[in-house]
Each structure stands twice: as C-alpha cells, then as structure tokens.
C-alpha cells in the first residue's frame, strides 16, 4: 500500500513536470494533431493529376481517342501538346511533366492495317517508384483501349485475361495503409521523447540523487517514471485513432480489444527504450541524441513506408528489434484485415520482451550509473 502511494506520488510529480510548463505542454499537444492531418494527406503513393505532355504526329481519330482516355483519367493531367521533338527533353528535364506520350505519324494507319501500332512513353525515372506506378496506370488504360478496339473491329482479344482483385483494400487507397501507420509513428515519437529526457533532466539538475535517497525503491522509481509516458501515449494514441476512424474514414474491421492490447504492449516497449536511453544519458542533449538514434532507424525500418520483405536478410533481422514493426502489423491487421487476438499473438510477445528487457536494464542502470 505504502509502495503504491509512493509510486502514485512520483508519477504525479512526473506528469506535473511535463504538463506545468506551457511550452512543453504545447509540444505534446499541437504537433501530433498537425502532423496527423498533414502527413495523413501527404503520405500517399497514389498518383493524382500527374502532368503529362503529348507529342502526337498522327492525324487519325484513333490517336485522339487514346490520348483522351489518358487525359480523362483522374491520375493524369494533360499539360501541353508538343509539335517538335526538341520540346520533349526540356519538359522532362525540368520536371514540368512526369511523362511524354509520343505517337508516330503512322499510328492510326498501322492500327487500321492491323499492324502493331506503337505508343511511345517517355517517363522521368528520377523517382523510380512513381515511374513504375505511372507505367502501371498507362498499361491498364492501353489494355482497355485494346480490348474495346478489338471488339469494335471484330478482332480476337487475348486468349486469356487477368482478373485482379485486391483484398482488404479493394480500391487500393494508400491512405488506408499509411494513416493507421501514422498512429503508431506518432505515439512512438511522443512516448520515447517524454521518457528519454525524464531521468536525464533530473541528472542534469542534480535531483536524481535526491530521488535515490528517498524511501522509493528503484523498482518504484521505474514504475513511477513509466506511468506518465504510458498515460500520455494512451491518451494521444486514442485521440489519433479517433481521427483515423472519423476524419480519415479508414474502416476499423477487427477487435478494438486486440488493438488496445497491442498498443499497451507497444507503449510499454517504447517507455522501456526511452527510460533505458535516459538512464544511460548524462545530459539532456545525450538523451535527445539517443532518442533520435533509436527513433529514426526504427521508423524507417519498421515497414511504415517501404516493405520489410524488400530489405536484405541482414537488415530484416535488425527490424526485429523495432517495436513499431510489430505494432504496425497489429494496427493494419485490426483495421483492414479484421484480425483478432489469435492471429496477432506473434506480434504481442516480442514487444513484451523488448519492454521487459529494457525496463530491467534501465532499473539496473538507475542504481549503477550514478551521476558524475
């Protein structure tokens, strides 16, 4: 009982330290909201209104029909019509257009004479992902054009056709993938920073030694310092979740309990890492540096933007140490795939282990790394 009272007192003091200062209160509340909204809209792999130019040397109706189909797609925006070959390079070089479609003078004639008509497509490959996506859209448009042309002219279509059906995200919206990821990203950043500075700040101010000579046992200090981080993380995380469901309208199909079990374990591991960094750091600058050194790789290697399966084997092993990696599988699984506890078990236990190991180390470091 006595121990509980002491822990509550310490936790209350920690919360007060963070919340009583106007500036630090502000940095906890405003940036996550702004970031969620800005990043939620910005982080997209979809192509919208991508500018393209047309160099059409053909006078026939078929070429106009094909170009109209491309220009009519919501993904592309016809910016310019060219009449010289020399105009192509500057447009692409200066990034004024992403691609140029070139139809030769014999395009319609070839098509009528049932030869292969060629549509040349020049794409800026500086961002190779965008280039591949644009090419993918164009392929679909051309395939549709071909099918319709074949039907109108009584030609045989291809003997076998693909019917692609994406599950869980039928219209392939990238925001359904990215926005739930941002929930994990922002909670991780906030929780880690709050805890990473909590011990370092006291060491720098010299109050940590005072804390150590109070009746508080190290385990109680550990708990007292973890609770505020977890609380802040839970509150902010829940808020961002609400925004994801009601503002971004990402469908929440699975069990909320499974999601919150995941979030609690995720916060525990983040707090563990934060406290561990904090107890290693002598100054706040080192605390921030440590938080950075942990945050940046764990975000980039978590599968947030680029799939883990694309990474080399060695790097894939490193990702196992990032708690965000597991939480992203949980949150996307619960949101889109409707997962529940059983399917997510393999994501729960690694976070519990990461949390436990780091908290133990942090507790040990409290006692054995005195300030100097």
């Amino acid at each position, binding site marked *: 009982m006595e121990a509980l009272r002491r822990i509550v007192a310490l936790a209350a003091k920690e919360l007060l330290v963070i919340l009583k*200062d106007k*500036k*630090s209160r502000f940095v906890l509340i405003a940036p996550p909201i702004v970031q969620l909204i800005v*990043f939620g809209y*910005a*982080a*997209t792999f979809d*192509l*919208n209104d*991508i*500018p393209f130019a047309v160099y059409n040397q053909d006078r026939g109706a078929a070429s106009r029909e094909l170009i109209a189909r491309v220009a009519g797609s919501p993904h592309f925006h016809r910016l310019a019509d060219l009449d010289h070959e020399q105009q192509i390079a500057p447009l692409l*070089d*200066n*990034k004024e257009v992403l691609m140029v479609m070139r139809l030769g003078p014999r395009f319609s004639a070839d*098509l009528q004479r049932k030869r*292969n008509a*060629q549509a*040349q497509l*020049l794409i800026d*490959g500086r*961002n*190779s992902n*965008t280039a*591949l*996506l644009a090419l*993918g859209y164009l*392929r679909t448009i*051309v395939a549709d*054009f*071909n099918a319709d*042309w074949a039907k109108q002219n009584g*030609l*045989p279509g*291809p*003997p*076998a*056709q693909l019917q692609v*059906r*994406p*599950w869980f*995200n039928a219209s392939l919206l*990238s925001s*359904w*993938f990215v926005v739930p990821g941002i929930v994990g*990203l922002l909670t991780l*950043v906030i929780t880690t*920073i709050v805890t990473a500075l909590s011990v370092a700040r006291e060491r720098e101010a010299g109050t940590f030694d005072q804390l150590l000579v109070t009746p508080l046992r190290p385990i109680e200090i550990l708990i007292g310092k973890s609770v505020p981080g977890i609380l802040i993380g839970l509150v902010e995380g829940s808020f961002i979740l609400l925004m994801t469901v009601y503002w971004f309208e990402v469908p929440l199909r699975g069990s909320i309990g499974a999601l919150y079990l995941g979030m609690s374990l995720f916060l525990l591991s983040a707090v563990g890492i934060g406290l561990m960094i904090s107890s290693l750091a002598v*100054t*706040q*600058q080192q605390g*921030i*540096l440590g938080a*950075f050194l942990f*945050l*940046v790789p764990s975000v*980039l*290697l978590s599968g947030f*933007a*680029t799939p883990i*399966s694309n990474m080399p084997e060695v790097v894939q092993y490193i990702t196992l140490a990032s708690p965000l990696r597991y939480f992203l599988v949980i949150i996307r699984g619960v949101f889109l795939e409707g997962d529940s506890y059983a399917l997510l078990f393999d994501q729960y236990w690694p976070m519990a282990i990461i949390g436990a190991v780091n908290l133990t180390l942090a507790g040990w470091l409290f006692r054995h790394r005195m300030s100097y």
Partner: protein
Amino acid sequence: MKASAGSRMRLCGMIRKESLQILRDPSSIAIAFVMPLVLLLLFGYGVSLDAKHIPLAIVVEQPDATSTSLTGAFRRSDYFTPRNFDSIQAAQQALDAHEVYGIVWLRSDFSRHLLARGDARIGVVLNGVDANQARITAGYIQGVWQAWLLGYAQTQGVEFRVPVRLEPRIWFNAAVRSRDFLVPGLIAVIMTLIGAMLTSMVVAREWERGTMEALMVTPIRIGEILVGKLVPYFVLGMGGMLQSVGMALWLFDVPLRGSFWALSAASALFMMVALGMGLLISTVARSQFVAGQISIVVTFLPAFILSGFIFQIGSMPEPIQLVTHLIPARYFVAISQTLFLAGNIWPIVLSNSAALLVMMLIFLGLARRNARKRLD
C-alpha cells in the same frame, strides 16, 4: 579598423571555445560522422521499393501442359517465389496468415477455355493492405502474363495481335532501381536531422546552464556569438555531408551525372539552412527539453514525408503542397536527385538553390533577432 580587429579577435575566441566544447564532448562528432554513416548504411540497404521474390500462391485445379508452362513462367521470374496449392481455400488461408502475398488461380476449365474459346480467365488475388506494393505486384504479374501470352501464341501458331503496344522508356534510371533515387533523397533527410540537431541545443544549453549571462558580460556581440557557434558546426556538418556523398557514389553505386561542384555548393547552402533552423529553435526554446522536442518534430518527420524524397509532392492535396514549400529538405531533394540522376539541369538547381538561400537568410535573421542580449 580597430573595431574590426577587435571583432575578429572576439569571433576567433568564440569559435575556439565552441570547437573545444565540441572536442571535449564527443557527442557532436558522433552526430556529425557516426550517425550519417550508420543511418545511410541502414537505409541505403534497408529502404527499398523494389520487390523481389514475392511469395505467390499458385492454385492449379487441373494440371496440364498449358498450366505448367504458365506456372513455369512465374517460377522463372525473379520477382516471385511461387508455392503450389491444391485448392483455393488453402491458398486463401495462406494469404490470411501473410504466408503468401498474392494468389494466381487457374480454374479447372482454364485450358479448355483457352484452347476452345479463347476467353480463359486467370484469377489474381492480392493482399491490398499495402496499396503501393499491391499495384507494383499487379504490374509484375501483368508482365509475366503478357510475356507468356506472346510465347504461347507463337508456339500454337495462333494469330494474336495487340492493337496498340506501349513502348515505355524510363529516363535517368533505366534499370528502375529505387536505391538510385532513395539514396540522394536520404542524404537530404539525414542531413536535415544532423544539421538541426547539431545547433538546436547549443544556445538553449548556455541559457540552461547559466553561462549565457557569463557570455553577455563580455564585450562580444550577439551576432558574433551566433557566427562563432555556426562556424565549427558548419565544418563538422560538411564533413558528414562529404562522407555521405562518398558513400552514395562508391558504396551504393549511384551515378553522379551532374557536377560535383554544383552538388557541393548546394550542399553547403543546405547545411547552412539546417544549422540556421537549429539555431533558431535554440534561441526560441531556451530549454533543452523543448529545443529537442521541437527539432525532432520539425526536422525528421517533415523531411521524411513532405520533401518528395519518397512521396510524390504533385500527388498531395493543394494545401499540403503549399506546406511543403516550408520544408528546406524539399529543395535539396530536388537538387540532389537531379544532380545525381539527370545531370546539370540548371533551371532546377538554380531555382531550388535560390529558395534555400532565402530560407537561410530568414532562419539566420530570425535567430539573430530572437537572441538579443537581454536577461528575462
């Protein structure tokens, strides 16, 4: 003449003091050199959008020569690691359990339809959670299918024509290696971090430790304090930058098609912007906790998401596109991706450099204004 000599002396003293501080607390050196090294190594190898060996379930309900030739086409492709399943149910379970990423489904009537009526259908199911990955995978599957179709038509002597054939040519990155555009972008993201981190705490630290008052009673002017703090960190930051460019060229084999000197000049400009941003944060915050928080919030994630390094700026909604103009990394990403991959395209290099120059002046000017000598 006398005043400038005194100024020079004070400035040298300040630079010397900061340099000593850097040398005695090696954490700044770690930030400038070890961090970019580790980060670039991790991300250069780790961050990739090129899918290879995608686990793919292949369901063949009635195996025969035709279906074997189609599954063989998938087996030979570098992009896929196919696994055979007997029933669609088993394959769907594997998809649910994330054991496979997609399913190619040849129903029992596939060959019959193909030979007799020429309207066979191949069912493809993809895990659409990661929309980008799903689109790229669908593209690869399409590629395999089309190649197989042409081969099949030839062996059967079937007349099969594609009315319009698309001939794509991808400029600047013919092999479509995502690393070639990610590494130059990563340099911008990493260097924003490093630059801002180096300086974001240095003024706040003096306030918190109470040494700012000590500096104030000396004859040194506030501008001299700021310049004295900038110079040593600029040297450190440029060292880190050079190291990163070297790694891009020799470790990751990214071609440098533009001029090295243009890249160096743009890098120096960008480094000044990042340092100026850190300095501004530092003068605003006055406590290391807040300075650290702000510098993480305004550097890493915005540079990662809003710079165009990975997400195309043109696809973002209009208001967000306006916001990206406030992100210095945006300009440097454009410069470095262009100089590395496309060459000296001056309109892009110069206009973005001009934007960087304006940002630098604004940041340094604001920092100068905020850091007036006063005791509150």
